């Protein structure tokens, strides 16, 4: 047990050191800070999704909806209400989270393939609304005309608008808080119940656990976190994209999770690093990026279904 615990702390420490020092070593490797921001945003979305897939055993293929709603909520708030970044993040998170909670009510009794299909369809509803509601959401062109506002702490201000590094650390801070909250939830009795449902739903039901309510809660929590990631995405780009709501985005979130390893807490972060690197590299090399991204999907599914972390853990855990 001790070896495992030490391993765990070592992994976490290494991850944080790498994340906090990214602005210093990334340019040396030819990257830029916004790229690291994108990794973190996708990682947060995928980790939130993984609470559902990896730790509750329920498959949603429509998480782009909550990601995108978070982005739109954040952007619309900045544009039409007031220029406050923290409030906009809260607004985006609430929009996506509440929508997910409501959709979840209709979803919880479905399982397996059916659950996935209904989540896809709900995702497309949101995409469709953003796409059609031109004068409010910007339609096909996406929502523009807002910028992230500097953080105002009363005594001092942090300029995250123009200072890319400051904004990166802002994302790291929020990512850290969210990851800590997720770890806390997963360790709580509620989190253990989610695992029990994943391992054997019928047995969990026989133990008297309200399975439906737990899945609904888990779905809802996952949506709130995903929407938080979406809000950060809008801030990162100063733009909310209707394609961020599309099922292709949902597929990307699932892919990031599987590629990194869906049974591992940090798996999605690793997946996000791989995915963003791949996307950045392939789209700079060729216009046929779909072919290569699709090929990666197929190869990961056929040959590396456990993901990178899953392969690394192979020896360490059963």
């Amino acid at each position, binding site marked *: 047990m001790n070896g495992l615990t030490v391993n765990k702390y070592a992994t976490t420490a290494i991850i944080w050191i790498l994340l906090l020092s990214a602005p210093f070593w990334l340019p040396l490797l030819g990257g830029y800070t916004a790229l690291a921001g994108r990794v973190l945003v996708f990682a947060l979305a995928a980790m939130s999704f993984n609470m559902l*897939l990896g730790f509750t055993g329920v*498959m949603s*293929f429509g998480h782009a909806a909550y990601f995108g709603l978070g982005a739109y909520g954040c952007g619309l708030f900045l544009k039409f209400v007031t220029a406050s970044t923290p409030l906009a993040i809260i607004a985006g998170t609430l929009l996506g989270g509440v929508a997910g909670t409501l959709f979840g009510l*209709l979803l919880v*009794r*479905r*399982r*397996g*393939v*059916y659950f*996935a*299909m*209904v989540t*896809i*369809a709900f995702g*497309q*509803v949101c995409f*469709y609304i953003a796409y*059609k509601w031109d004068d409010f959401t910007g339609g096909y062109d996406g929502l523009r005309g807002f910028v992230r506002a500097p953080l105002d702490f009363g005594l001092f201000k942090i300029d995250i608008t123009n200072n890319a590094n400051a904004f990166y650390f802002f994302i790291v801070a929020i990512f850290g808080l969210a990851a800590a909250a997720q770890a806390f939830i997963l360790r709580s009795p509620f989190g253990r119940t989610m695992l029990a449902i994943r391992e054997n739903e019928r047995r969990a039901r026989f133990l008297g656990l309200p399975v439906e309510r737990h899945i609904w809660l888990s779905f809802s929590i996952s949506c709130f976190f995903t929407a938080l990631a979406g809000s950060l995405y809008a801030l990162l780009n100063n733009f909310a994209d209707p394609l961020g709501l599309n*099922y292709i985005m949902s*597929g990307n979130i*699932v*892919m990031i999770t*599987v590629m990194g390893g*869906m049974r591992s807490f940090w798996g999605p972060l690793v997946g996000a690093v791989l995915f963003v690197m791949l996307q950045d590299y392939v789209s700079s090399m060729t216009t*046929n990026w*779909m*072919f290569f*991204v*699709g*090929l*990666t*999907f*197929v190869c*990961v*599914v*056929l040959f590396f*279904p456990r993901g990178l972390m899953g392969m690394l853990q192979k020896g360490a855990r059963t």
Partner: protein
Amino acid sequence: MLQVVMFNLTNGLIVGAFYVLMALWLSMIINLSNVVNFAHGNFLALGGYFAFTLTPYIGFWGALLVSPILTAVFGYVIEQLMIKHVYARNHIYSLLLTFGLGFILQDVCRYIWGPSPLPLGIPDILSTPLTPDLFFITWYRVFMVAVVIVAVSGLFAFLRFTRVGMRIRAGTLDLDTVSALGVNVAALRSYNFAVGSYLAGLAGVLAAGQIGLNPNMGDDLIMPSFIAIIVGGVGSLTGTLLGGLLIGVAAALTTVVLPSASEAVIYVIMAIVLLLRPRGLLGEEGMLS
């Protein structure tokens, strides 16, 4: 006004017929193999492009016969190469796999046939209108509906009266028992996939004759065919048939009243069905859950 209604009604029936073809395939694979196929729109495009390449040599009628068969063969190969390896795994893998496959197929079509739209020539006799009054109903539209009716009846007869069809139906209900009775389930799933690919190829040729070809021509059909299945009820092919026609016609009739809501209405129908009858119109309780 009557003409407008008629116009949209025929449109709706035709669009619904396409939803039905695509959704039936999806539904067959979900029922027997528990796989949601995300690439079905790309199989449709492939069927259309096969026809485009074949038409100069064997004409439209030849292409209509051969192209779906090629698509079925292609589907069989893909099933053998990729999809059969994920049957035993979590659904997430089959979704991801077909999702990636869709990306690949779309780019391959773009690479081979180019990104710009291409026309598929149809015989002159089919492009004339039925009567001058109903100028919007060309013979091609009648022909499409007729082909779809024949194909769907053929599919149902195949499932009802042939041995393989009977096994497919039995496998939908209880695959373990069918397997224990000595049926080769792996082969059954392959046939099932190939038969479904045939439908997609057929839909591709028909669609190409009406709207022409482009690499992502199938994308618009992905969501409606999912919704047709959800509305009709997972596990019931008759339900899928009904669901497809229902949302096709509903969307078209909404165009008469409120054009901007024509796509929204299919999602509204889905939400209503999920609220009032979560298993779908003809679905059975407990199916796939």
